[in-house]
């Protein structure tokens, strides 16, 4: 058992003639948070979706804990889909637009995966789900439907849903960008708690202040490559690359 939870190397992905990822490699130690920064269209979402095989890279290797997939060797058809599913099972994902199941209650949204896909005992799962709901501050909304919640509450349910899978890592794709400004704080504070509890996380965000607080490692992505990497003090506090500086200036001005 290694202390490296995520290991990515040589990741390439093109959509048609557009090369979106052009040789990405990085590692994430267990219990740490990695923040992906980068301008729009730089490939952050694609990279994140490659980690759980929602997008299938053309080549490169992704290892999460003890599941490793070499995408250039991925067999076509059923076998390939099974491999992708194994890798996907290693992570939980929080979407920008939460993607909660509208026809399920808050509690059902959380228990659906563990009970139906992981086939764990419902009683146990429900008990855990209630603990998670308490943790994200929604203990009293278990029986609400998603449409009855505010955006921030919905996103916190999305986080609880991801955690209920007991994943090795949690992936966040701009979890606060779709929210009204006054709701951003409650979601970020939940994620901050998770970092403190030792979850291994990869977070795409434009919240620079938040990144400085929670990140153990910052990756700055541009044009499908990692342009700069290091601690937040290094990458955000003292960027070496002109592209990083320009990006940070723009985000800090508008943010």
């Amino acid at each position, binding site marked *: 058992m290694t202390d490296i939870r995520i290991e990515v190397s040589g990741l390439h992905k093109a959509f048609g003639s557009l090369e979106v990822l052009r040789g990405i490699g990085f590692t994430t130690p267990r219990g740490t948070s990695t923040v992906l920064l980068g301008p729009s269209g730089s490939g952050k979402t694609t990279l994140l979706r490659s980690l*759980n095989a929602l997008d299938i890279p053309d080549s490169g290797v992704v290892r999460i804990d003890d599941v490793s997939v070499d995408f250039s060797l991925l067999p076509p058809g059923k076998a390939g*889909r099974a491999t992708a599913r194994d890798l996907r*099972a290693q992570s939980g*994902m929080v*979407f920008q637009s939460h*993607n909660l199941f*509208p026809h399920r209650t808050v509690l059902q949204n959380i228990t659906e995966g563990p009970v*139906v*896909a992981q086939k764990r005992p419902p009683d146990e799962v429900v008990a855990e789900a209630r603990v998670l709901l308490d943790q994200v501050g929604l203990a009293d909304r278990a029986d609400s439907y998603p449409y009855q919640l505010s955006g921030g509450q919905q996103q916190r349910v999305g986080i609880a849903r991801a955690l209920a899978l007991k994943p090795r890592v949690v992936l966040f794709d701009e979890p606060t960008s779709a929210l009204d400004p006054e709701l951003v704080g409650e979601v970020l504070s939940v994620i901050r708690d998770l970092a403190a509890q030792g979850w291994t996380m990869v977070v795409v965000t434009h919240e620079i202040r938040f990144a400085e607080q929670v990140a153990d490692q910052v990756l700055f992505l541009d044009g499908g490559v990692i342009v700069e990497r290091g601690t937040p003090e290094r990458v955000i506090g003292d960027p070496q690359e002109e592209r990083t500086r320009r990006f940070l200036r723009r985000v800090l001005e508008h943010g």
Partner: protein
Amino acid sequence: MRQVFRGVLLLLLLLIVFPPPANARDQQPPVVRVGTEGTYPPFSFHDPGTQELTGYDIEVVEAIAAKAGWRLEFVETQWDAIFPALDAGRIDLIANQVSRNDERQAKYGLSSTYTHSRGVVVRRTGDDRVKSIADLKGKTTAQSSTSNWAKVARDAGARVEAVEGFAQAAALLTQGRVDAIVNDNIAVLDYLTTTGSKDVEIAGDAGQAGSEQVLALRKTDTALLAQANQAIEALRADGTLRGISEKYFRADVSVRDGGAADLSQGRGQRSTWDVLRSTAWPMFVGLVKVTIPLTALSFAIGLVLALLVALARISPFRVLSGLARAFISVIRGTPLLLQLFIVFYGLPQIGLKFPPFTAAVVAFSLNVAGYAAEVVRSAILSVPRGQFEAAATIGFGYAQALRRIVLPQAARTAVPPLSNTLLSLLKDTSLGSVVLLTELFRESQLAAAESNEFLALYSFAGLYYWVICVALSAAQKRLETRLNRYVIA
């Protein structure tokens, strides 16, 4: 999704409680299946009191069966479908005043004659333009299009309007939509006494020396034909045929010069109210035993097929989606009646013979599949991609995501258009009447042929359909409310 399963279960339950009709079974000889109209009094009709099939031809063929040792199974079908049914092996003989002519003699096994009659020309009362068969040139007559009388009319230069049975023809004549009818003397006399109609009258003979009516069998069934002929001669010799004939016609029509038929005593007239009262129950039985099970089963199977076709249609495999597209296009681009005929009369020619109820279920469920597939497809596509992806990230495979996440949401979009499909289907099952199914509409046709109460009986049948449709619409409302509970506060 659980609601959908519950619905399907309910339908299956309905089917167990109301199984499809007995004539849906196909049987081997020694049972002889007899094709007859059941709407051609006094030869083949339903007794208004008992609803039993009876008539001169029925009693004759029953007497023949008693002599020949057959067990009979009657299959009631429209005249124009009778010979195709014989060809397709759905019946073994026709007992329905089949006139002997050269074409039929060449193609079928025809029995000895059991009825001698003559054709007459019928006109609207007092219409002097029609005096004899010669006057039919350039005029329009109403006939069963494949009957011998239609041939006689055409040969006389008339244009033939196709109808099902004499009662319908008489209605068209009375309404002035056609100029004349050529038909059997006896059938016309029966109509005139039964209805007491003064609107039409016999203008004169159809000009033939007389016609002979026989049983028709497949040419290859020589043994069965020999048995029939033997029995007919025996019945003629022992006076049985004469007895049956005199009971119905007060004359012996089983020989050439047995006297003029006299039907003046008639079968008696009944009030509209009486007709309705005695028909309401058979129609209800037709509704509950055939129309509803046929609708429910076809809809359930059709929906499952529609889902498969819709999934094929949106699958990334070109061949699969191409096939699905072709299927949808063919189903939507051809008449339902034609699809029904292909399954019922066409497929037996390549060895695929289903009993009537099964054939109807096959045709109707394929039709539902063709229409519902597009509804299901667009409903699935209306569910945001993110739902599929979220389902994938919680560990669901494609089938699981579809069943637990996507379809329940798609259902909300699909229910209103699918309800329309269901209502259409319920009404379209009336087409089952042309493939030997005694469903609601067929029951009303049977009663109308015997009583001529078209308006009352068809309106009454309509009432049954309407009530079921209203009930289904109410169920749809409730289902929609249920499915909307997670989007409307």
